[in-house]
């Protein structure tokens, strides 16, 4: 992506946290977005497009409320640079975005400034240059920046979610943007493809496929669009989970007639056994410090979530309520493990602290909610749900609020995996 951005000098140098996203009852921050000025007067159509993408990003984040334009003050200077703060005093808006864009051929420049209407202060200004084709990406980066200045952490609007869909008749892997746009098919091998796992560097998706009559592990290289065979031990090579530094992979492999957790190098070499039991082990997930793995085991008679050191020691049972707890996902900050547990015959999403305390239920629906996966900033969880009929991928805030369907492909969707941030 050829995209440059320039920092416009700001009067304040530090982001202040305007809304505490950890608060149980989060009040979205009312924000006004002024119509963008078409500086070159060449593409009047882009104003609407940019606005739509920006407003949608900020809305689906759950952190902002967009003030409708008919609530803007009548004073034309209210949208000047800097704005006439006094004219906003009767408005609900607490922040204001003004900006403009210019395009020349396929080149596009977008500039924005963010103002605090309560403190009457200029917060940040940035200018982005890229191609018109990268419009969505530019606006997502604007949204990331605005989110940083309001919440203290960059947004994740430029991330993507990969998942399995049966839309073509069999299970293939697809990728879609965080805002549900730009659906793209990744695998096209016609086989059964399972458990996609995005690499921490964003370049690869590991998955299991039955192409050669065995559940083998493959990598899909997103930069070259090629499929690479990685691990083909007879029996399972399933449920890959990248170590946080990307150097290794935990996975399910056959040992002594049952499934155990192994760790191998990212090139498929030196598989090393982690769990040792007579029972079935499944669904490994790494702690963000790379020292522990949470996994599923039925060693106590029913599937439950356990944690272990990566060398196999210090195994602890994490879940005790219910007869079926599975699909653990360790949060990127390390403070929570999300999982799915069966309750009244249906799966719901829960979180629990890594020491087993503070179990919280996040979903409550008429269908099955499974396969939770954290966003790279730990503020969101994607999961699959049959709550509205066929299984779909949903995204919610980490406290269970603000649930939204990501996309709706034909067929059934399952097994989401989240890309890392792409704008590092």
């Amino acid at each position: 992506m050829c995209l440059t951005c320039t920092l416009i000098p700001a009067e304040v140098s530090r982001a202040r946290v305007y809304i505490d996203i950890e608060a149980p009852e989060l009040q979205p921050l009312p924000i006004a977005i002024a119509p963008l000025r078409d500086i070159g007067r060449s593409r009047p159509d882009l104003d609407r497009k940019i606005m739509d993408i920006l407003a949608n990003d900020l809305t689906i984040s759950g952190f902002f409320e967009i003030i409708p334009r008919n609530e803007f003050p009548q004073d034309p200077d209210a949208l000047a640079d800097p704005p006439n703060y006094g004219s906003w005093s009767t408005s609900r808006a607490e922040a204001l975005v003004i900006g403009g864009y210019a395009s020349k051929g396929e080149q596009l420049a977008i500039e924005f400034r963010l103002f605090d209407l309560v403190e009457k202060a200029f917060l940040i200004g940035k200018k982005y240059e890229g191609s018109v084709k990268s419009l969505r990406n530019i606006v997502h980066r604007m949204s990331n920046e605005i989110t940083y200045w309001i919440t203290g952490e960059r947004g994740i609007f430029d991330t993507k979610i990969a998942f399995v869909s049966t839309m073509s008749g069999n299970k293939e892997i697809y990728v879609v943007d965080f805002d549900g746009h730009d659906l793209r098919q990744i695998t096209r091998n016609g086989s059964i493809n399972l458990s996609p796992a995005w690499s921490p560097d964003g370049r690869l998706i590991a998955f299991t496929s039955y192409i050669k009559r065995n559940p083998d592990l493959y990598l899909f290289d997103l930069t070259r669009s090629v499929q690479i065979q990685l691990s083909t031990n007879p029996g399972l090579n399933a449920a890959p989970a990248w170590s946080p530094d990307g150097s290794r992979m935990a996975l399910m492999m056959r040992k002594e007639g049952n499934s155990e957790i192994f760790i191998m190098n990212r090139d498929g070499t030196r598989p090393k056994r982690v769990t040792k039991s007579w029972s079935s082990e499944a669904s490994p997930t790494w702690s963000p410090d790379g020292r522990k793995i949470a996994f599923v085991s039925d060693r106590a008679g029913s599937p439950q979530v356990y944690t272990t050191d990566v060398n196999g020691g210090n195994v602890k049972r994490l879940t005790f309520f219910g007869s079926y707890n599975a699909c653990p996902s360790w949060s990127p900050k390390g403070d929570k493990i999300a999982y799915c547990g069966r309750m009244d015959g249906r799966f719901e999403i829960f979180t629990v602290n890594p020491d087993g305390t503070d179990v919280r239920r996040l979903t409550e629906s008429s269908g099955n909610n499974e396969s939770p996966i954290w966003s790279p900033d730990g503020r969101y969880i994607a999961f699959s749900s049959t709550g509205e009929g066929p299984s779909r991928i949903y995204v919610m805030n980490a406290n269970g609020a603000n649930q939204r369907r990501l996309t709706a492909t034909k067929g059934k969707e399952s097994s989401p995996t989240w890309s890392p941030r792409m704008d590092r």
Partner: protein
Amino acid sequence: MAKKWFVVLGVIISLMVMVSCAKRAVKEEPVVTGKAGEQAWGKPGEGAERAGVEEKSLQASLERKKYPGIEGEFLESSLLKDIHFGFDRYDLTPKAREILAQNAELLLKNPRAKIQVEGHCDERGTVEYNLALGERRANTTKQYLLSLGVSEDRMTSISYGEEMPLDPKHNEEAWAQNRRAHFIILSR
């Protein structure tokens, strides 16, 4: 005497058929049934002479198949019957043991057949835990056949988890059908 000549002739024809089959690089083929006399099951010569009723009937029951998206063809026999499991269980029921005894008998009489035991699950539960459960079901089944004398080098196992339901419906009856071990013949 004439009968013996027929058997020898049968063996020659079967060898010719096998050679021509091997040469053909065809992906999809019509169902192979009702050709019991044409293809010898056991070793040529003496083995063919000992060909019993079961072998012929197994031969007659074979059907050539291919799973979409999975390389290679295989054979399936209606005489190698599926066994079924309880929900989230991989232990063998008395009924399953009975069926496995019959399957083992058939396999012992057809010593060249190499089979793959497939472990399947119903749709309930997670995709990944069901892969582990299917692995376990396939292995338990394989171990039991081993205990009945079927040699290990003739058997491989695979877990399909919940990915290949026989009955796609979402009810108890369908789920009971789908929790199964299935047998395919990879070579003979």
